[in-house]
């Protein structure tokens, strides 16, 4: 069993919801990322989404764009990120790690090389933002045979027919994008989210996790009532940006943002 499936089955038994933080690897510099990952786990993370920095993150708002720019300026490459996961695994063999990013860095490294190395270092899932299931003919099977979950996005505008395709191809969990727009955008309406999640429950047994617009304990707790997991990105990356000049205090900052959400969700 993949670590992601394992984690969701444990959470289900405990009656808890998954808290899934996202950070961009290499932000503000590569040497801090593994420490941040451990800090996130201590603060209550169930799964970690590790962003692969890309020069043209077209589905992301300014917060993640700038994180990518900081990480790239420090020379962070996909191969470095895989090394970070290997290092993380030396101290943590249970927390699932999902790589999230855009296709080109993976395409350039080579699908097979990437999949081999990802499996070897202990990656559990891959979410390629600009690769919908229709374009995953070649890459999808390479992940599957290595027990790496192919995670896909579902949007409020996704048609019923497309949702069925995505559910059929998806593994690990479904990432429901709660808002129209890019990451870091405005506010989120939990009852609206609930309405959109309901038909998906009929299509799939995959856990439904919700991202975009979750900024504090209150929004996290609201979403946790209707979803199986809560994904938080820009709220954390904002803290990294604020303290990029004093990286030694960032881990503590991430911990406090996430711990507040954990407490609110478990209350």
């Amino acid at each position, binding site marked *: 069993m993949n670590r992601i499936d394992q984690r969701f089955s444990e959470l289900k038994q405990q009656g808890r919801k998954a808290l899934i933080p996202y950070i961009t690897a290499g932000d503000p510099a590569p040497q801090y990322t593994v420490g941040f990952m451990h800090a996130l786990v201590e603060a209550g993370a169930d799964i970690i989404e590790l962003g692969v920095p890309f020069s043209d993150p077209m589905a992301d708002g300014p917060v993640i764009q700038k994180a990518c720019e900081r990480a790239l300026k420090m020379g962070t490459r996909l191969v470095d990120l895989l090394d970070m996961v290997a290092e993380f695994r030396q101290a943590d063999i249970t927390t699932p790690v999902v790589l999230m990013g855009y296709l080109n860095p993976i395409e350039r490294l080579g699908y097979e090389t990437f999949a081999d190395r990802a499996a070897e270092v202990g990656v559990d899932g891959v979410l390629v933002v600009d690769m919908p299931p229709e374009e995953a003919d070649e890459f999808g099977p390479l992940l599957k045979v290595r027990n790496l979950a192919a995670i896909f996005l579902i949007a409020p505008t996704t048609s019923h027919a497309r949702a069925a395709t995505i559910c059929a191809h998806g593994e690990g969990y479904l990432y429901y994008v709660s808002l129209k727009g*890019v990451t870091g955008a405005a506010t989120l309406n939990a009852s609206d989210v609930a309405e959109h999640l309901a038909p998906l429950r009929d299509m799939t047994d995959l856990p439904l996790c919700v991202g975009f617009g979750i900024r504090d304990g209150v929004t996290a707790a609201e979403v946790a009532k209707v979803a199986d997991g809560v994904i938080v990105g820009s709220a954390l990356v904002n803290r990294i940006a604020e303290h990029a000049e004093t990286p030694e205090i960032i881990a503590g900052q991430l911990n406090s943002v996430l711990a507040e959400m954990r407490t609110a969700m478990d209350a």
Partner: protein
Amino acid sequence: MTVSATGAHETASGTRFNDLTRMPDARGHFGPYGGRFVSETLSYALEDLEKTYLSLRDDPTFQAEFDYDLAHYVGRPSPLYHAKRWSESLGGAQIWLKREDLNHTGAHKVNNTIGQALLAKKTGKPRVIAETGAGQHGVATATVAARLGLECDVYMGAEDVQRQKLNVYRMRLLGARVIPVESGTRTLKDAMNEALRDWVTNVDTTFYIIGTVAGPHPYPQLVRDFNAVVGREARRQSLEQIGRLPDALIACVGGGSNAIGLFYPFVEDDAVAMYGVEAGGDGVETGRHAAPLSSNAPRGVLHGNRTYLMSDEAGQVSNTHSISAGLDYPGVGPEHALWKDVGRVNYVAANDKEVLEAFRELTQMEGIMPALESAHALAHAKVLAPTMRSDQHIVVNLSGRGDKDIMTVARIDGIEF
């Protein structure tokens, strides 16, 4: 070029394409290129656009409206002009210029914005957005938006806003808002990222008018179809004025919309050689260029399609360099990528220096000032014509006029206004 006995085109690895006009496939693939590599947040908008386009492309009423606008608003057909004096001085083939510079707004770009504006009107969306490099597509979009009373926002890289001030002001006069993009390399690719971000956020009210044959399906197809009027006219005019098809076609290639427009109606005419001229910048050998095809860049995915894409070993998209903002793009339309692989089109590059020479030469010998983009095509005509006989004919797409570039050239000449 590889053409089998049956007339099929073949890639080096042996994949055959029987009819290059019947591209893309239903999913927007041109062989291994193209497609719809986008975030799920964009899928709905693209499916919707595809549905709208497919329902209208063969609709005679829609086509009649498009043709009417091209005739009476754009001023089509554009002439095919025999540049006799320049041909003679080059001492070889006869050079004919397809005068897209004479279109309303001064470039081929308006063919596509007229078409997409008609689509926007059918969808009833009150707002259009566009990305622009040199500003020609932005101007063409602002123009059709003004005419139809649509709100218009144009994304433009901050660096391009600086080097194309005249077009920026033109767009503002037309009532558009020009939004400088400060992210990334602050050029065309970043403008496109920002326009895509706007579109996912405002998809209910906004129609995105992409200016080139790149982007996710169905854009490469519909932008090609709207520009193909250039090649259809040139084909007919060649038969009338030359008495036969030309021996060669030349067009500049950034994203590749004017080249596709000229080439597409000739693509199955195997006797017609085709040359796509990319931006060589400081020279392809220096690495400072915008020539993904002729430099054999790796395959990659950007802006929703797979194509040849200039990127570093880690897959980060490279900075590009060109004297012309309109060609300053690291990728290229996916159909061009396929045409390269099957050998149907020869992709070459012209560097900034050669381009300036061609710019000055045409201006002084024919009294026609070309856009710096189009001057890339002219630079290759200078190379090709002398290798051909005087009874052979080359059609060069003069895709735009050079007024917008006067400041750039003046700066190179050390003149400040």
